[in-house]
């Protein structure tokens, strides 16, 4: 199947629950006594994404830039199918993998090997393929004997290496990546880059969220600038990056 990633008119409201909104008793009492709060349910709703549209095809490497809270990570989560938008639609064709948070849904109490097994099962691999996956991840992440120890005791760099090796061992056609993976040590970055470039070269789609201009210039063919959940600019990396950097407060 030819990979494709399409977002059409994606709107996402992010409800923030705090204090009384978490309590059934308070919610019931409120509706009984009729003293309704702000949006009726004392929720704060953040308009996280507004009318997001783009279409990506094999070979596209999209960079997402924007300040903190601009909606980059939320957009990645919507693309990964974790948050479902109430309006609009995301269409994914091809297998998808997302490197979103440093722990990557790993259970930190379990060993590296057990986490690899779970990931393999999630992707529908059989036991022989899972063994192969474990070998590949172990050799790339270079964890040695740590592989059989709980992830809890890993250093943050080791967690990143394991997560990156795992996400890139099961080759997705569409790779979504948050900027945290750049936290690896310099030596690992070289290896990671080689492995990632190998993956992207296979005519697949990459969506990358980052603050670092040089990463965008090296890796991306297209950049979207998100500002308060809205697309401010969408185009060639040089153009969008120039606009973004000149608007950036304090830059």
């Amino acid at each position, binding site marked *: *199947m030819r990979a494709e990633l399409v977002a059409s008119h994606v709107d996402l409201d*992010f*409800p923030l*629950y705090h204090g009384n909104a*978490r*309590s*059934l*008793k308070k*919610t019931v009492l409120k509706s009984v006594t009729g003293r309704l709060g702000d949006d009726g349910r004392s929720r704060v709703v953040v308009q996280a994404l507004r009318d997001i549209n783009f279409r990506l095809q094999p070979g596209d490497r999209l960079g997402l830039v924007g300040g903190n809270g601009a909606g980059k990570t939320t957009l990645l*989560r*919507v*693309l*990964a*199918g*974790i*948050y*479902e*938008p*109430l309006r*609009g*639609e*995301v*269409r*994914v*064709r*091809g*297998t*998808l993998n*997302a490197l*979103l*948070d440093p*722990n*990557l*849904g790993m*259970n930190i*109490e*379990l060993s590296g090997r*057990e986490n690899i*097994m*779970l990931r393999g*099962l*999630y*992707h*529908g*691999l059989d036991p022989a*393929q899972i063994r*192969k*996956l474990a070998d*590949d991840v172990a050799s*790339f992440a270079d964890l040695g004997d740590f592989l059989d120890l709980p992830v809890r005791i890993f250093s943050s760099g080791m967690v990143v290496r394991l997560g990156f090796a795992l996400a*890139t*061992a*099961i*080759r*997705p*056609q569409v790779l979504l990546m948050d900027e945290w993976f750049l936290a690896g040590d310099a030596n690992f970055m070289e290896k990671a880059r*080689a*492995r990632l470039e*190998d993956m992207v070269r296979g005519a697949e789609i990459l969506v990358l969220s980052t603050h670092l201009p040089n990463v965008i210039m090296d890796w991306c063919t297209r950049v979207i600038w998100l500002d308060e959940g809205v697309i401010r600019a969408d185009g060639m990396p040089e153009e969008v990056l120039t606009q973004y950097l000149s608007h950036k407060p304090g830059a």
Partner: protein
Amino acid sequence: MHHHLPLATHTASLDITSSPRFWVRAQLAVRDVRSAFQLWRLCWTLSWLDIKLRYRGSVLGPFWLTLSTALMVGSMGFLYAALFHMDLHAYLPFLALSIVLWNFLSALVSESCTSFTAADSMIRSIRMPFMLYGARVVVRNVVILGHNVVVIVVVDLLLQVWPGVTALLAIPAFLLWLVAGVALSLMLGALCARFRDIPPIIGSVMQMAFFVSAVIWRPSQLNQHEWLLLFNPFYTILEVVRGPLLGEVPSLAVYASAGVATLVLCLMSALLFTRTRGRIAFWV
């Protein structure tokens, strides 16, 4: 430079959307349940690792559960046989069975409250069918039940009690339990993710239910008031599995009450899951 591992087929194509419209949400909920079934091996492994983690580092492993259940049954057996003036030989097999089954139901209810919140980091970082988390709670508790069954078998062997072929009637009833268990963990899981003050309420309800549901006393001890128990779904649901295992066929009224309770639970759960499935990721 690296192995070309085959890719999962179930993630090969995906339309991510939600809708305020009920029938669209119902279709999405059905899709969720279906894809969870395809991931049964993952579900089994997650459940097994849950148990392994709980008892990691202990010599007996999950058999700690068996030991503590045995101690509970032993001590309560002597105490209540004396209190209720009952023959220990008749009471102990009843109590062992009751306690093991009730512990299963009670753990199922209380762990249902955290079926989603306990998996928050997984839910926020990888798309998985929510049904998987519901099934995981049930599978995990069935494995634990499997360890505790040893207590029943040992008591029955020691006292040479044998329920006979009537026990086979417990099998369809147990399957009903599993369905109800999944329905419960989806429903309570979603409710408790949204409203954080529900778990303590559930906790006190279950504690009360333990005393009023003929777990440690025999229904016949109520004499002419025994029929009241038919309106206690905790009792009838317990009885459809326990009765046959004691060699007694439950009355039709008991079956009807348990069936209606399960049906209502499943319907409520289906409606709630359809309505909330797309919101759970925001709640955990």
